């Protein structure tokens, strides 16, 4: 557990850099997080990130890729294009949420 500064705001993160406090996130922070890992945010990206945030709030856990696809309505293939290589982890990082724990 550590604190780091993003956009001049103090943010708590775990050892890997994932945010641990849901309420500390805002879109500006999300933008900085995305920039830090080389993701260019478009409206499509934001739609996914907002789904993740809403779903986490409702379910208490970060949705898996499958859930983003079935409940969030974004095609799996598209997710791999928007967030290449490690989509689940990248989405969680940008959304200020923990890595998804589920297997599928």
């Amino acid at each position, binding site marked *: 557990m550590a604190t780091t500064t993003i956009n001049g705001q103090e943010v708590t993160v775990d050892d890997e850099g994932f945010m641990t406090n849901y309420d500390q996130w805002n879109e500006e922070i999300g933008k900085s997080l995305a920039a830090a890992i080389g993701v260019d945010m478009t409206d499509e990206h934001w739609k996914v990130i907002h789904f993740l945030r809403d779903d986490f709030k409702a379910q208490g856990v970060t949705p898996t890729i499958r859930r983003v696809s079935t409940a969030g309505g974004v095609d799996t293939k598209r997710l*791999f294009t928007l967030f290449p290589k490690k989509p689940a982890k990248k989405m969680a990082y940008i959304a200020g949420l923990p890595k998804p724990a589920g297997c599928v």
Partner: protein
Amino acid sequence: MTDTVPAEMIVPSFDDDVETDRTLAIICSKGSLDMAYPGLILGNAALGEGVGVHLFFTFWGFDMITKGRMEHLVFSPVGNPATHIPAALAPLPGLAKMATSQMQKAMDALEIPPVPEFLELVKASGAKIWACRLSADMNHLTMDDLWDGVDGIINASDFIEMTDGAQLLFI
């Protein structure tokens, strides 16, 4: 990118700059419901980590990609002492059906998709799906009999060639 990241930020490495051609090849040789999942789950996990995945279906595993069979895989306790069902009871009529239904319910409760849907998921995530030439010949099956997500019917030599340098898993 790195010079615009504030020094205080802790950024995980997502291996974007690492040119990884790490590949995992999974041979699915079983046709029972319980043995259909390990390959799919690990394959899916690998894809989610940016690892290339080849799924190779052979022998009984062929049932997992054959139309009409893939939706009806069965889990039977027969010959499976790990289920702790007495051997004499395992072959009783109706037991396999019950065990299958129980297993599917357990999977549904954890939001693990049924096999056909799971295959769609791994395919959409980038897995290559291969059917074994010998198994196809033995069962007189062609691409028409197989799930349309199958990329092709290949023989053992093709498989060995395409998995050069890959990690291999036999299920």
